[in-house]
């Protein structure tokens, strides 16, 4: 289905605007100008803001049409590696949006929040159990925010012991970009260490890197290479013996949910991406929730607030007074409460038996998809290894022989109604696709993906320009990113 018209798909909302029009049924009654006359003239706005003037139906149609230009989990297979795009159960949304929850003011007293606080307390307890940690705080609002909290706690811990020299954070070269960025935000210096050809950390390099300046190491396990770090206990020993702490990036927790716990592997602090493992929606780029868990020695440093349980079964917020060593507050109130409610509902529905099924079926799906792709002629980046919940294939050979890149494959997949896997990450594997099917996809969907990849490979051999010029069926073709960055057009301006 090629589109021919110049204007892509849907006008800008401003282009529907007509002076004097509006969703008037939604507006408060007008007041006489005298109602605001007490506001001093020099503090007043003189020109109205550039907001659209459209009727309610016009707005509804516009935003419905915009939504239809998106791929989403509800409409498409979305095997985006490291992002855990699993089904977001409708019940989680519906019951988190009960009017009492939506209407509850964040500063409402605990007397008017026992129901909400009970959910938060139980969520803290369940997260402790599935991660093997001793304390949990829920307020960080995304994975990177949780990372910040985690590294800030590591720093606070060392400082509290007068160990002021420890300002180096070690990360494997394949780490998520947020890891080094977070270390910098916490005032630390980053040291990268290599991994070997089987995807495990080079222990000699680690031994050489640790020392009296080591604050800690940040790891994902399974790693961003889609394999389990087999010598994790040895890694933990090396870092702990050097006086450092272990940070677990929970981006890949889905792989091991119910099977292995970061606390048992020796990690001191972890963040969990509730929008990945616990299936809260990604929302087109958030909101997430990046709850943090800690071992006993880091518990005093957890960010506030936390929900505590008192005698008489009353829940209450623990704040500065209760946790004087806390790293402090990271959000205006208590983080993304509505997201936390969704994660709570999801965990209660799954229960303990559902938790281990998540790790099992996520792993089954990834290994099945990897096996089928290998059969179809694709190269695994780590062929000797089991896949975790995700895996990497490299199109290095195809790029060399056929002059078709990973980006071309990714864009052609869109024409097959499949969202592209993560491309060109991790950076150390050339021409890679990081593929994460998640446990909520069935065998048929995985088979469809293999069929699409096989067809694209054939096409790349016979008619490569079909692939290199993809996508062909989307609302737009490939966009000029260079122009976007050079001729910045970041807001609409009315033509005079």
């Amino acid at each position, binding site marked *: 289905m090629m589109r021919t018209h110049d204007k892509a798909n849907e006008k800008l909302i401003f282009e529907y605007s007509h002076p004097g*029009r*509006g*969703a008037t049924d*939604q507006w408060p*009654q007008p007041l006489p100008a005298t*109602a605001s006359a007490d506001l001093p003239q020099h503090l007043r*706005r003189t020109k109205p803001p*550039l*907001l659209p*003037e459209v009727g*309610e139906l016009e*707005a509804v149609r516009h*935003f419905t049409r*915009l*939504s239809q230009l998106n791929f989403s989990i*509800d409409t498409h297979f979305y095997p985006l590696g490291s992002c855990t795009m699993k089904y*977001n159960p409708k019940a989680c*949304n519906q019951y988190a*949006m009960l009017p009492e929850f939506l*209407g509850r*003011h964040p*500063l*409402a007293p605990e007397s008017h929040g026992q*129901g909400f606080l009970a959910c938060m307390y139980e969520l803290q307890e369940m997260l402790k*159990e*599935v991660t093997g940690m001793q304390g949990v705080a829920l307020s960080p*609002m995304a994975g*990177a925010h949780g990372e910040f909290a985690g590294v800030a706690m590591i720093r606070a811990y060392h400082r509290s012991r007068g160990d002021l020299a420890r300002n180096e954070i070690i990360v494997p070269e394949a780490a*998520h*970009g*947020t890891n080094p*960025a977070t270390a*910098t935000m916490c005032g630390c210096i980053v040291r990268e260490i290599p991994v070997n050809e089987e995807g495990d950390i080079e222990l000699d390099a680690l031994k050489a890197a640790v020392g009296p300046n080591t604050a800690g190491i940040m790891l994902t396990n399974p790693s961003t290479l889609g394999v389990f770090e*087999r010598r994790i*206990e040895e890694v933990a020993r090396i870092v702990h013996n050097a006086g450092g702490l272990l940070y677990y990036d929970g981006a890949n927790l889905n792989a091991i949910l119910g099977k*292995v716990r970061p606390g048992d592997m020796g990690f001191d602090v972890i963040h969990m991406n509730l929008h990945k493992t616990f299936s809260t929606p*990604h929302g087109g*780029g*958030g*909101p997430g929730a990046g709850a943090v868990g800690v071992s006993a020695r880091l518990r005093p440093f957890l960010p506030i607030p936390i929900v505590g349980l008192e005698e008489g079964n009353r829940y209450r917020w623990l704040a500065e007074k209760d946790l004087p060593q806390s790293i*402090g507050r990271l959000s*205006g109130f208590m*983080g993304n*409460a*509505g997201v936390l409610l969704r994660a709570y509902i999801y965990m209660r*529905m799954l*229960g*303990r038996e559902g938790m281990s099924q998540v790790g099992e079926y996520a792993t*089954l799906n990834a290994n099945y998809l990897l096996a089928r792709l290998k059969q179809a002629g694709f190269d695994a980046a780590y062929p000797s290894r089991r896949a975790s919940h995700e895996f990497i294939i490299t199109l290095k050979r195809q790029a060399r022989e056929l002059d078709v890149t990973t980006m071309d494959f*990714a864009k052609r997949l869109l024409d097959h109604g499949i969202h592209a896997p993560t491309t060109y*990450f991790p950076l150390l594997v050339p021409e890679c696709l990081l593929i994460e099917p998640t*446990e909520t996809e069935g065998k048929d969907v995985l088979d469809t993906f293999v069929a699409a990849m096989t067809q694209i490979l054939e096409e790349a051999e016979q008619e490569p320009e079909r692939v290199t010029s993809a996508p062909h069926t*989307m*609302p737009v*073709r*490939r966009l000029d990113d260079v122009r976007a960055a050079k001729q910045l*057009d*970041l*807001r*609409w301006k009315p033509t005079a």
Partner: protein
Amino acid sequence: MAFIPHTPADVEAMLATIGVASIEQLFDEIPASLRVKSLDGVPVGLNEMQIGRLMSERARADGRPLCFIGAGAYEHHIPAAVWALTTRGEFYSAYTPYQAEASQGTLQLIYEYQTMMASLTGMEVSNASLYDGASAVAEASLMAVRANRKSKSRLILVPRTVNPQYRRVAVATAGNQGLRFEDVPYATDGGVTPLDALKKYEAEDITALVIQQPNFFGQLEDVDALTDWAHAKGIFVIAVVNPTSLALLKPPGEWGTSGKGADIVVGDGQPLGVPLSSGGPYFGFMTTRMEYVRQMPGRIVGRTVDLSGREGFTLTLQAREQHIRRAKATSNICTNQGLLVTAATIYMSLMGPVGLERTAAASHASTKDLVAALTAVKGVRRAFAGPFFHEAVLLFDRPVAPVLTSLGKRGILGGLDLSEHYPELGYALLVCATETKTKSDIDSYVTALAEAVQAVRAA
């Protein structure tokens, strides 16, 4: 109940393809000593009927009191269309628009949002959101350090009239990078930041001054004078604003007499169609001038053309971000608050300039009515003179906490007790009313307050 669609036959076929005997075998690279023994601390699963019942009971326990608390989160009417559209799966269950061709809906919406926020704040460019208003102040402070090249001090002045939680979050977030935040006292008569209080900094190197309008007390700061003072000394102005109020109040882009305006504008977008929801998810907004766009944290969407010359939208200036720049990024932010931006964009489209101004004016009028009614009760008076927007501080002749408890029992949340953050004010209460509060709501408060004061006196 784990939403797994596999049949036993599927599993068998898949295992055969992989060449293993069981799912268990797929975990054979993990040391046996590390395997989970039990998860007894997680309850057994509930089906949807059971969880629905549990959540309804929990919700009932919280009730639906009549709420007069503001202090950074405001109850406004939210048109039904806002969340009906926002929770469409195509918005709700999509990811960050990295694959632009498959995300034009989200990308165009963010471009529309950036246009609206830039105009509302009177600035040139907006990002695609930050976590919340508090963390936005922290990010703005870090950005000011990068952008204000004249200043080396990393010292940020934060008047005490700025939301105290925002100040705490800024310290917790930016303190690790050597930023210092210094309090500036307020005038006890007007509840605003006087120029006099800034005099002691005349000779100092200051990176930025934060100005909140309306301030935490609801009072209106003399933003022009404060901005002029800062700019005369090469100090950046970080404006913290309530987006609803901007329908009535001067946008930060026009603050000061030079016409230059604030340098960075931030705030919490919650009033724009986002429910109170116990404090989140909300979203932080940030706008600035084009000259500082490369110092801005967070995602930004730009309009460009595709291979055929058709207009389209894409994430741009990504060289600032963590997935490219890693340790040298402007921030570690990755996931932000996209879905709330969706809600806010739809809300602003439905309200338009007229609806938003009516909402602001009705909230202002409602709060004036509330203040007039409450100060007519014996023992209650206003703490500060001067204009306010939709919040005000009241002083009581007795401790506020027992009065609030007593009101709570009558189904009314009477406001925020300021004794923790502002003990010097005495028995002070911050109250708020928006367009959602009717005359009869205000009457209920006054009646309940009279009873509550009686009850406390009797106790």
